[in-house]
């Protein structure tokens, strides 16, 4: 026969201070765990949303990132003429040869300099990348020293409103619009016209060429054709995969740090739970004696105390989740080591993460409650009753 849960609930209320301090200790561990994982999640999500699976990006062979790459106008022309490149409503190929540079700009609130990606795109870039949308102002005009900036850039840099000017590459650029890009890392970038960026930066070379495929399922064939073309000398990737790969190293490191820190903190919290539960068992020795006399089995007593520990932990898990929840959506930034440029992203607390935090708490509860519960179950009835 099971010992009713209400017994545990009432017992917890009997010792409010011990229950609350133990639960809060666990709550802090869970909160740190969730917060760190949300950081890692957010970073990965920002890059995982960057680019499209329907697009292909080409870089010079061996240049595993845009910054290192260099492609000629000739290559861009050849790529645009390929039969597998999708065409827009006007029959022109949807291809964007792009320049890619990193420029130092002043952060808002006197935060020092940060490296920002300045991407020179073709007018077609907004069609090639469906997610990109002007949310304020207008697109840049061809032939003008105008740029549009991502929404995450706007939050973090000085003078980034529509109509303001930014200075980089030895020239002043008028910001004519803000764009969103579905939460992707493009939102941390500045976009201008490639033909305007070329002369002030690296001369007549592009860093990457991105195009939409006519038939996205034919990707493997497309890749082989491009990489096999001796005129091009390129590596081709699905755009989405290319950006995801740039995030793996850092997001792995962040997840590792989250688990390392939360793991160590958890050990401390489990010790605390063990203390609390031992104290609970010791204080209730006569009660346990009575329970055993009434005919409850030892395994019922064990289960009951274990449940009590898990209850404390679950309270902690819920509070921890609540503590961590407000950071959801908070924008922070880090340097992506692969590109030496700053990427802004939002902490992302997912429902799965909250569940994981709760499970984490329950595991701490089971670990912390087991030995005390074991001790309770093995009590000698006569001795424990004598204490009363």
């Amino acid at each position, binding site marked *: 026969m099971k010992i009713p849960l209400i017994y545990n609930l009432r017992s917890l209320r009997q010792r409010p201070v011990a229950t609350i301090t133990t639960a809060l200790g666990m709550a802090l561990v869970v909160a740190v765990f969730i917060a760190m994982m949300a950081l890692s999640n957010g970073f990965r999500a920002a890059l995982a949303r960057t680019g499209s699976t329907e697009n292909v990006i080409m870089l010079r062979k061996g240049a595993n990132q845009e910054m290192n790459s260099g492609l000629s106008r000739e290559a861009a022309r050849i790529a645009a003429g390929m039969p597998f490149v999708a065409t827009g409503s006007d029959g022109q190929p949807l291809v964007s040869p792009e320049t890619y540079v990193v420029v130092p700009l002043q952060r808002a609130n006197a935060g020092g300099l940060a490296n920002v990606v300045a991407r020179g795109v073709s007018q077609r870039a907004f069609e090639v990348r469906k997610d990109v949308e002007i949310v304020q102002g207008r697109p840049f005009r061809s032939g003008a020293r105008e740029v549009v900036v991502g929404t995450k850039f706007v939050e973090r840099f000085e003078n980034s409103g529509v109509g303001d000017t930014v200075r980089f590459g030895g020239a002043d650029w008028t910001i004519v619009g803000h764009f969103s890009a579905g939460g992707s890392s493009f939102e941390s970038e500045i976009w201008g016209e490639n033909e305007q960026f070329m002369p002030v930066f690296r001369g007549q070379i592009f860093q990457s060429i991105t195009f939409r495929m006519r038939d996205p399922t034919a990707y493997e064939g497309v890749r082989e054709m491009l990489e096999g073309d001796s005129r091009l000398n390129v590596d081709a990737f699905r755009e989405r995969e290319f950006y995801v790969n740039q995030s793996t190293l850092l997001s792995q490191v962040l997840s590792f740090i989250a688990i390392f820190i939360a793991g160590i903190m958890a050990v401390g919290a489990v010790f605390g739970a063990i*203390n*609390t539960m031992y104290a609970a068992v010791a204080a209730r020795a006569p009660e346990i004696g009575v329970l055993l006399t009434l005919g409850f089995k030892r395994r019922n007593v064990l289960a009951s105390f274990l449940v009590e520990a898990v209850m404390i932990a679950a309270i902690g898990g819920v509070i921890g989740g609540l503590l961590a929840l407000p950071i959801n959506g908070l924008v*922070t930034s880090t340097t992506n080591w692969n590109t030496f440029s700053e990427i802004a992203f939002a902490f992302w607390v997912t429902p799965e993460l909250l569940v994981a935090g709760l499970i984490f708490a329950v595991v701490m509860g089971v670990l912390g409650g087991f030995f005390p519960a074991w001790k309770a179950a093995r009590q000698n009835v006569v001795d424990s009753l004598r204490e009363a």
Partner: protein
Amino acid sequence: MKFARLVWANLFRNKRRTVLTALSVAVAFFLFGTLRSVLTTLDAAARVGSEARLVTSSASGITFVLPEAHAQRLAAQEGVKSVSWANWFGGYYQDPNDFFAQFAIKADTYLRMYPEIVIPSEERDAFLRERTAAIAGVGLMERYGWQVGQTVTLRGTIFQGDWEFVIRSTYVPENPSFGDETFFFHYEYLYERTNGGISPGWFVLELDDPSQAAAVASRIDAQFENSTAPTKTETERAWQTGFITMWGNVGFLVRAIGTAVFFAILLVAANTMIMAIRERVHEVAVMKTLGFQNGTLVGIVLAESLLITLLGGAVGLLGARLAFAGDNPMNSFFPGFGVEWSTIALGLGIAALLGLVSGAVPAWQSARLSVVQALRRVV
């Protein structure tokens, strides 16, 4: 002090509880020691950059180069003793994900300016004589099992193709924070193989009088301001700090986590002390009856909690120091990673604070304890 034995005996009244509490404190301070060492190591890394040397780089940003012709104009500047330059190579050895830094350096002047790169003079000469020679840090030599005299092939990501180098020397950094996993080779080699398609990434300047650094830097930038390649000149330390701040707000993260850890353990320790005092309500009442002053009782409780947290703190902090002494995996991320004594001192200070705060509630309770009430309660 005459109550030391009483405090000591109380500590062993419930050994399991004392040990568990001390251990949870120890674990927390292990974490504290590790986290703070990340900060101190980054700090030390920022200080590796010399304040006596200046670095001139392109005002347009880190991906831009400067014309080699700048070198002569820089050398002609008043207060500049010598000029060298370097560029970033960005290659890899076998595994593209296995990162280490490679610099193409203007060798003769560069090595003279960097006493941090400690190499035997005959190896230095051998390196200088050979166009394709390279110097690798001891850490890097170990990582790939390289030997001096061996030919190694790096694959370039910025500069295409396979590049062969003969390792002619290995250096031990003068200061561990300098890092021992860097690869240096001749700028001329890069220049020739790219058919002159390369230019210095940055210039390093040695000064006659380091105290004039700021003035020299602003004179240089003013001179190049309206040239085709404007410059940004700063002390090497400031330049390197710029790279380190790119890690993001590590300080904030560490402080936030540290605070959470502190409060989590505060709760554990306070809970334990409250339990410990609750158990001996009678004893405290009896002591009061015997004439013990409130102050003494408070002192005894605080001493006990202090002892637990200080003991736990010491174990955790020294444990961290031992764990990160010598070779450890953190070294690849943070060259010279280790727990400084200042971290241990700070940690012990925090442990003491933790002890006082967690003992405060039970100490207050025992001071306020009503003797009659306590003794009336059934044993």
